[in-house]
């Protein structure tokens, strides 16, 4: 199991050092600094073995978190734990920065003592942790409160405490998708997928039982066979094929496996209910058509057309097209019909920004790039043209069909809950080769 956990600043000075196992000595702290943080080469692996000791590291801004072990630990678990550790710290004191870590080091030690015992991760749900790791002392608690804390930390529903009350029962669902594309210069889709998340904010009283439904093809087809379909004749994007999905630990997985129904008791506040991935029938919100021409050895002509491909009534926002330029660029002249375009020498790219663009429109940019003559034999690698945007729909076609809330002990029903849904589609890695 995890033998020790260290946090370093960008210089390699140790900010937090907690050792859990006897086989990890103080020299491990230095070994990681010397061999990884101060290494001349770029990091070639997130797992490093130094003198029979294995180091796992992740970086958050310029802070290094490293877990150390001498055993054959579950590597996936160690990384999941490090991410979780970051989440917990962020939930307690915001951004992970040197200042915040130094300001909260006592708290961090307290957390590390609680969520890792002898190197074994323990309950690390912030909801539960915040009930008893408060930096305020816990002497004021009554016996009932204490046992409520311990039963929540160890219990089946470790993510929610009893006795939550809201005057107004309300919930918010965000369907957040990132659409990824790799397209050949000729417009052929090399790979495309959507990775989506359903994020829920719940402000519900008691221990509500929820049931979530979406236009999952398997569910719809099953109902279709049962003969209860409302509009069997209609084709189109009635349902979508989900390649795979994963759920927050509150969801009863065995029930999903057998009936494909998503039922759960939600944590209080914001959390990620599910993640999913689709690859079929994706709506690609934009198409990029590049044209690069090398005019002699010292000049490039670039023309890029973007076409929006969704309902004209919808508006895409925060559109940004990034056209890479060679390292030996000496000057750029740009003309664009819409938005603003600028050559950024430090980023080796022309960045073209458009604030808003409606569906079924087209826009174009053309640029002349002057090059310095070089004797470098190596050709310019032509990195792909990438795009960023945000659209108010789900490119996968996912629709929320219902979210039902049942709380039998309290006197509010599904109808009393105010529910909100919104869809946001963002670009993930959206690239067209040129």
């Amino acid at each position, binding site marked *: 199991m995890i033998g020790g956990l260290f946090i370093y600043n960008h210089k390699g000075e140790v900010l937090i050092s907690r050792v859990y196992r006897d086989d990890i000595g103080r020299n491990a702290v230095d070994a990681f600094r010397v061999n990884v943080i101060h290494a001349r080469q770029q990091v070639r692996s997130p*797992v490093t073995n130094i003198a029979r000791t294995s180091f796992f590291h992740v970086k958050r801004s310029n802070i290094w978190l490293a877990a150390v072990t001498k055993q054959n630990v579950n590597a996936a678990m160690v990384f999941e734990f490090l991410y979780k550790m970051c989440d917990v710290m962020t939930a307690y004191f915001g951004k992970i920065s040197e200042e915040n870590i130094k300001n909260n*080091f006592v708290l961090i030690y307290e957390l590390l003592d609680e969520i890792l015992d002898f190197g074994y991760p323990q309950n690390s749900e912030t909801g539960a942790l915040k009930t008893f790791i408060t930096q305020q002392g816990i002497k004021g608690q009554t016996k009932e409160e*204490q046992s409520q804390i311990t*039963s929540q930390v160890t219990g*089946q529903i470790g993510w929610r405490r009893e006795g939550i009350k809201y005057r107004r029962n309300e919930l918010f669902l965000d369907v957040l998708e990132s659409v990824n594309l790799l397209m050949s210069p000729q417009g052929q889709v*090399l790979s495309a997928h959507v990775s989506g998340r359903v994020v829920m904010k719940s402000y519900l009283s008691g221990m509500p039982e929820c049931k979530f439904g979406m236009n999952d093809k398997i569910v719809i087809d099953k109902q279709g066979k049962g003969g209860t379909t409302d509009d069997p004749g209609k084709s189109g994007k009635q349902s979508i094929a989900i390649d*795979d999905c994963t759920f927050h630990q509150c969801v009863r997985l065995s029930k999903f*496996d057998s009936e494909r129904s998503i039922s759960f008791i939600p944590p209080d506040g914001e959390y990620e209910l599910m993640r999913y991935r689709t690859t079929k029938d994706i709506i690609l919100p934009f198409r990029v058509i590049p044209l690069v021409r090398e005019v002699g050895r010292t000049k490039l002509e670039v023309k890029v057309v973007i076409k929006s491909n969704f309902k004209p009534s919808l508006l895409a926002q925060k559109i940004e097209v990034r056209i890479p330029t060679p390292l030996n660029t000496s000057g750029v002249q740009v003309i664009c019909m819409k938005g603003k375009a600028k050559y950024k020498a430090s980023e080796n790219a022309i960045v073209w920004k458009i604030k808003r663009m409606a569906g079924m429109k087209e826009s174009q940019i053309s640029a002349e790039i002057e090059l310095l003559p070089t004797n470098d034999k190596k050709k310019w690698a032509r990195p792909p043209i990438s795009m960023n945007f945000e659209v108010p729909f789900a490119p996968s076609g996912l629709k*929320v069909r219902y979210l039902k809330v049942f709380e039998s002990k309290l006197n509010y029903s599904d109808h009393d809950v105010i529910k909100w849904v919104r869809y946001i589609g963002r670009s993930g*890695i959206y690239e067209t080769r040129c």
Partner: protein
Amino acid sequence: MMTKHVRNLLSLLQENRGLGSKMTDSKYFTTTKKGEIFELKAELNSDKKEKKKEAVKKVIASMTVGKDVSALFPDVVNCMQTDNLELKKLVYLYLMNYAKSQPDMAIMAVNTFVKDCEDPNPLIRALAVRTMGCIRVDKITEYLCEPLRKCLKDEDPYVRKTAAVCVAKLHDINAQLVEDQGFLDTLKDLISDSNPMVVANAVAALSEIAESHPNSNLLDLNPQTINKLLTALNECTEWGQIFILDCLANYTPRDDRESQSICERVTPRLSHANSAVVLSAVKVLMKFMEMLPKDLDYYGTLLKKLAPPLVTLLSAEPELQYVALRNINLIVQKRPEILKHEMKVFFVKYNDPIYVKLEKLDIMIRLASQANIAQVLAELKEYATEVDVDFVRKAVRAIGRCAIKVEQSAERCVSTLLDLIQTKVNYVVQEAIVVIKDIFRKYPNKYESVIATLCENLDSLDEPEARAAMIWIVGEYAERIDNADELLESFLEGFHDESTQVQLQLLTAIVKLFLKKPTETQELVQQVLSLATQDSDNPDLRDRGYIYWRLLSTDPVAAKEVVLAEKPLISEETDLIEPTLLEELICHIGTLASVYHKPPSAFVEGSRGVQHKRLPARAGSGESAESPDVGQSGPAEAPPAVIPSQGDLLGDLLNLDLAPPTATIPSVQPSMQMGAMDLLGGGLDSLLGGDIGGSPSMGAGLGAAPAAMPAALGSAPAVGGGLGDLFDLGGGVGMPTGAYVAPKTVWLPAMKAKGLEISGTFARRGGIIQMDLSLTNKAMSVMTDFAIQFNRNSFGLAPAGPLQVLTPLSPNQTIDVSLPLSTSGPVMKMEPLNNLQVAVKNNIDVFYFSCQYPLSLLFVEDGKMERQVFLATWKDIPNDNEAQFQIKDIHLNSDAASNKLQGSNIFTIAKRTVEGQDMLYQSVKLTNAIWVLAEMRIQTGNPNYTLSIKCRAPEVSQFVYQCYELVLKN
């Protein structure tokens, strides 16, 4: 029913529920004044609570940055008695760090701990028991037992789950205590606890304890406990699910039905958001699937269910992607059908970290097939223009591998490679030429039209591998290259500056050229032969040169047959993990072993994780399914320690990569050659046989130039055929009785050496120390290019010649070799004294193992001391150096015993008989001129001998005694 709405206010309100950022603890990191410790001491003893707490915080901050604040121990411990929980936790943290260095003072804390374990607040009880387990001081451990026993049965699950882990902590400190106190049974009972987290922690603790007791039946997994675990699996935290799944993976179901029912209950975990849960579930399924009949419908369903979660892992954070990819690499080798349609998800993204890119590339090659080759090639071509040199090289190499793997694509691959060569990027060109060489070997007489293009790039090649490849191509196709002689000649100019690889290749290529175009190239071949044989001090090169020279001068027809023989085909799949290792790694999915692609024993110290795991046998395939899969395959006696390749402790062994040891063979006068050649003359043809073929590296196999060896050295044993006899001077030279030679034992199991198994023993024959080795190839591909080297050792043992493995070792073949050893190597004291660390290299990799030799190996033939000298020396050596041993159960009389010992160069100088006791006085001399004197008492009728050994270097006595015992008992 629902509407869209933006709501800022609520989310803003939410954010303020967290703690405000009132604290500014960073100030504690800045104090570095001189009288700091003194000031802190005063503050710690302050009456004001706040001041006390501040001081403790400062102490912890200093501790974090590595300052020694142990001097404050009593003062800090004094702060422990407090009802402020935050302060208490800080003091505990301090205690955990320093208790070990101040064990006596740590006792002061015991009372508080014991008291806290009785506290009405469960959080405090748990804190106390958790902290106590982390204090590794024996005296505290004693006091821990009672509170721990109570806490294991506490009414509060939070305390019980903490106590469960504490048992594992205590076991790590004092295993015996845990057993004596019966904690293991209590821990087992917790598996049936009503609280899922208690179950999970108990499982984790038991699994860890079981690992250090390989043969105990601690984790007594049976269908009932499995059922309990599966129930808890649905209810516990994500971490608990991982503990339980990892534990389940060690179970072997009784039959395929049980296997299926467990799989059915584990599959829902594949949808968990935590990747580690998913990977551990995959591990259980991959393992249990082995038992399912392939025609079962469920088997197919399961296979289909595995692909999506594996693909989903690739959208995790990069570090996890890396872990996932390393595991997918294993899964794809074990069950290629799972991901065969998922090629696209492994396409490299421009912004992937380099470690993800390299892993994806590996998997792409494995998944490449006729169906997807067009796409793969297009991608690889893109990658070959990227920035990272390693990545580009790997991409180019991948194109070559595709050509070899998918025949239909070979043509396209070759043309892609040619395009890349046109880019003139130096490392791309070199890499391309290396892979084109392999393509030529796989598809002879098909793509030679490209040779012209390759030749154009001759000048830009500066890496040995590329130069060697190019030279091979020129030599192989010399008849089609008009100016082959010029090209090769151009390389010859700087012959001595080339690396061995290039030199060997150049030698062979020119000989090939000569055999193909004898008329114009006579001069060239003369030149290279003399360069190789006269001016080089590399034995490999010289040997190969001599062989060619003799071949050419005696029988050119035979030479042609040998040098231009048809080459064996090269295999399609490269870099496959050897099957037994792959099976073991599959059992370790998700863990570090699967990331390193090495068995845990290669990087874990001590007994932990050294057992080899195996996949269960398919139901009905003969092997009883009940046999537990753990701890069966490990050999009963302690296996030889295998030294891992990482770590720098064996630095000097590692330079083995270059070539077999040099310098042991005396250099030869050119004038000797001709005469010597006659000596061997005709026999050579038949000796060389066909099987050496044109393998580019056959030089190593041909071994030492026979003529060059002074016969007395006898260092070419077991070369097979007549040559072996010729040199086998060992046996029967003036020995009264043969020295005892232990039977061969396995030194390097095949599991640890990619299929190469080495067993061996040591012998001393006619004054020559020999290491008798049996090399067995348990892998699927042919092994060649063997070489051996020793680490420095106590008596300077070193190979006296290269390891002579003449023919390539084909799968399932065993070759016996005797390696003569000298004692003139570098010396370093080893622990134990007779330990020998060995590195063996072949065409696949370098492997390390260590073995122990009997000291009798070093007993020299002139070890008989003069009587007078013996007496004087015996008196001279201080009595402290005398060691006494008992040799039991020997049924020999004194004469027989002394005869037997003499066979191993233990000489009896005198014999006295006193009161029915025979006293034998004996002497032994070691190779490094250390004398060992011994007195052996034999009582008639008593099978137990008493042995007294005196030596100026008393550390050898123990080992001399072992030799006595060995010799007398065999």
